[in-house]
């Protein structure tokens, strides 16, 4: 969506124009629901999260700062919604050791399949959101930072920490041994 056109829609939505708001929602429904699915791993709950976020965003549309894009702001809301749903599940976030490999790692080597799913699931919530938004949904770092309410350097740090946990387990295990 063109920036100017989007800002026009945002202004109209702030003035109470539901159709303008619906246009904004339509532009983010795919990335937002895919983010929710990546976090919740349940299609039905991802849809619920989107609907709930849509209601919240409508109620708080006045909080969207002037000239700020809609998508990062909405992604932040749906990220929070997913957190709340996960908290409701009493899911445990298992933290991996804070020791990371300093050994040379094949930069093209990433976890795959179920290993990757489990590793992402075990990431701290903020790192998980950052990884999904930036890598899976292809959002630029600046937008992800806006969505998560942190600086770009802070986001990079968060992503780097997460990436180290998405390498094959052997490397992490070796690193722990070598630095332990």
């Amino acid at each position, binding site marked *: 969506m063109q920036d100017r056109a989007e800002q026009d829609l945002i202004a109209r939505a702030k003035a*109470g124009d*539901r159709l303008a708001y619906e246009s904004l929602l339509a532009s983010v429904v795919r990335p937002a*629901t895919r983010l929710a699915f990546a976090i919740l791993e349940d299609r039905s709950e991802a849809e619920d999260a989107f609907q709930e976020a849509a209601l919240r965003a409508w109620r708080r549309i006045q909080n969207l700062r002037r000239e700020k894009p809609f998508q990062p702001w909405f992604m932040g809301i749906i990220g929070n919604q997913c957190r709340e749903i996960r908290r409701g599940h009493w899911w445990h976030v298992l933290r991996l050791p804070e020791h990371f490999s300093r050994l040379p790692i094949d930069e093209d080597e990433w976890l795959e399949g179920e290993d990757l799913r489990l590793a992402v699931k075990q990431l701290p919530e903020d790192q998980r959101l950052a990884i999904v938004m930036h890598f899976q949904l292809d959002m630029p770092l600046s937008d992800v930072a806006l969505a998560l309410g942190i600086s770009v350097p802070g986001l990079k740090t968060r992503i780097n920490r997460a990436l180290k946990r998405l390498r094959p387990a052997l490397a992490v295990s070796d690193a722990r041994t070598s630095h332990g």
Partner: protein
Amino acid sequence: MAEAKLRRNLNAVFDPGEDFPPTTLLMRTFAMLDVEPKPVRRGTRPLALVALVGFFLVAAFGLLELHVWNSQRSIPERQTPRTSGSLGSWAFGGIDMVSPTVGWNSSGVSFTRTTDGGSHWSDVAPPGLGNSFQAYYLDATHAWITRYLGSNLITLRTANGGMTWQQGTPVFAAHPSGGSPRIYFVDQMHGWLLLLAASGSNAAAYADVLYQTSDAGAHWQLAATNPAPRDWSPGKDTYCYQWCSVSFASASTGWLMGCCWSNQPDLRLLVSHDGGVTWKPQAAPRVSAKLSCPCSAEGPFAFDDRHAMVLIRSRNPYPALAGPSTLLVTSDAGDVWSIRSLPGEAQMIVGFYDSNHGWAIAGSKALFDSLLALEKPGGALPLYRTDDGGITWVQVRTNLVPLSDYLHVEALGFLDERTGFAIRSSIGPTEQLLRTTDGGRNWTVVGTQP
């Protein structure tokens, strides 16, 4: 390059399928927004008319003359039907006090009930309810829940305050693309379900379908499909319900109201005198062009078999930006609707508990602008009261003042001339339930929901 591989891996692992999100998700979401709870469903009950014009400031506290409420005074429990609400995201969002002590609270993810005036809430949800449902309350013990299960709409009912639930016959909805259904019970036995049922992915194939029950929801029968004359249907918005509400004044007489407008208000009412089987258009006055649209209509709120109200208001929830609201009243079951003015240049909320007695927070846009200043909240909110159905309004001195932590009043409703409840919230999700026992002059916090 390495990132590209990670991206591929992530997409392979967290792939919800190409058909996700379903094409109906947006439609369902828009339908939810249509009946967005802030304006419609906050009825502290038996409040028969609750129009909440969204976010605004309130705060209670401050010392005004204290009117001690005689706790021995008998306040009959109300059983006034109202329009059904929609899902809410906040725990207090769906609160409905049906007596000074008993209330229901449906947030869409939880379902609770209080018997001590709102201080404590107990979970009364039926097992396996999930987190996407709608609730309707008739009185202290009778409530209904609807939720989609596959292609069917399931209704659950309780007659004992949520201790036990019974499921009614499923209603086929083609698929759950109809958004939030409207449910309405005029008494413990007679109810109606209004659905937007689809026969395919083409929105043009959607139909408004009305079901009726006369055994408390144990069985539902199809009453009408696309009830309006072909050339008279309201609303051109694909994603909007043609008929946004169903309400009945008795087991036989009721209304469907069209409120899907883009710009100019175009009130459309259908009336039925045979329990919802046949419908005919009912004349409604053209409301003033000074309304600040996009607008929406709420109601009709039937107080008895003759008296009802409709509120037409701006969709903008901010009083400083919204225009004036308009009240339509009838005293002959809708044969003639008359326009009533509301006090002030803009109204934040309006609530009636019968056809004569109502309250409104209303004032000039400039006043609301100053009251809503986040950094420096202003003075008391302008609260008005009418005892003659909105013909005349008098201001009530109140201690409702803006607080920076709780800026918005979400709902306002009265059980009688003295006892009322209000919900106020912060910009965040925290909400407070307030109660007055002296007609709105003094408000105290009953409970806070983090």
